[in-house]
């Protein structure tokens, strides 16, 4: 994540605190910072600009996230005006999810996006409940654009995994 030079360290921390409270409405244990969606924070106290990266482009949660960010920023008294933009460049890729984000996803019962190179054969996804690698893909496409449905043959639980997205694809 990049910062413009319009903010003091204290202000940066305050902004981070507030943005950490903005969750993905479809996975409400993970913040947009943990998902790696915040690319840049620029501007100054008069006008602040937040640049976000969409995960999947047709994701219906994008507008909700945008308005939640605006509401969250309204809680900081020194901000006069805020703008939120979505950028396509750089593209969001699943390696942007932070280590904390990967843990939060597991807590929600969703396997974090596998780190392996998807171009070389299938992916290896470990079960978010028992960590077993003895899992099978049931449906590449899940209930939301960013998730697939899998099954764990060890603990016999169905679970979801975040699809890996990589520019190598």
């Amino acid at each position, binding site marked *: 994540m990049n910062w413009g030079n319009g903010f003091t360290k204290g202000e940066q921390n305050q902004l981070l605190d507030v943005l950490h409270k903005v969750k993905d409405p479809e996975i409400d244990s993970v913040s947009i910072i943990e998902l790696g969606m915040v690319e840049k924070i620029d501007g100054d106290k008069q006008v602040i600009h937040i640049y976000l990266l969409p995960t999947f482009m047709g994701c219906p949660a994008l507008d909700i996230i945008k308005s939640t960010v605006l509401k969250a920023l309204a809680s900081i008294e020194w901000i006069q005006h805020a703008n939120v933009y979505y950028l396509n460049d750089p593209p969001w890729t699943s390696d942007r999810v932070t280590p904390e984000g990967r843990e939060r996803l597991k807590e929600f019962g969703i396997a974090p996006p596998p780190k392996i190179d998807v171009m070389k054969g299938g992916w290896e996804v470990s079960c978010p409940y028992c960590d077993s690698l003895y899992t099978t893909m049931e449906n590449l*496409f899940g209930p939301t654009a960013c998730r697939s449905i899998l099954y764990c043959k060890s603990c016999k639980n169905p679970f979801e995994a975040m699809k890996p997205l990589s*520019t190598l*694809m």
Partner: protein
Amino acid sequence: MNELLSTEEKRAVIELLYQLADDDFIISYRGSEWLGLAPHIEEDVAFSSISQDTMGHAAMYYQLLEELGEKDRDYLSHARKSNERKNAVLLELVNGEGHYLHEPRYDWAFTVVRHYYYSQAKKVKIESLKQSSYPPLAAAAVKISMELHYHLMHWTVWFTQLLNAGGEAKKRMLKAIAKVEAEFEDVLSLGPLSKEIVKAQLIEEESRLLLSFHANINAVFNDLSIPYKGEFTSLSGRGRFGEHTEDLSEALNTLGEVYHSDPGAVW
């Protein structure tokens, strides 16, 4: 960045963006008509997810058009008349007999072949667009390519499995392939401004796109031991030139109903 484009280049970018946007928009609509009707529940989930992604791609192209001074993206997607649309005719054709609300007897073989061929063509274009001279389009291509990877994977499974199944499945698939190829020239056409589009280095020329397409598809047909003719025509019209069928007018009436009830509404 827009200031750097000459008038001729800007016209070419706009023309190409309409083709890309309208293609994704209408095929995504046809896909959405399958909701609840797909062969099984897993397919229902997968197909609606693919259609949602594809609508996202259309929305992004319409957004780029809006940024170039065209009308707002809701207007561009919903309010433009049939003869203003630049999508390939193949993508607007109905899914089959019947109607979504009354006795839909849609053709799954046609749907699989249309989506498979379209995804392959889209892949060829997207790879070329990654090197586009227009930076917003090149960035969009990188983004779309990641999602398209999964779409193509999905349709490849259906395409090869139904053809390998033999019997009735194979018969219907071969019939669908003939129907799709009879319209497919339009899909890889760059329309009336193709020269300007290529001159501005927005995308490679038609003949090169076609060569890449043939090479990719030929390999798949070889594995299936099916002869690949690769002879395409524009049987029902050339959509890139604004020629369309009654199927498109009807689709536009249906999908525009809510929009036209209150064009100023904020969604």
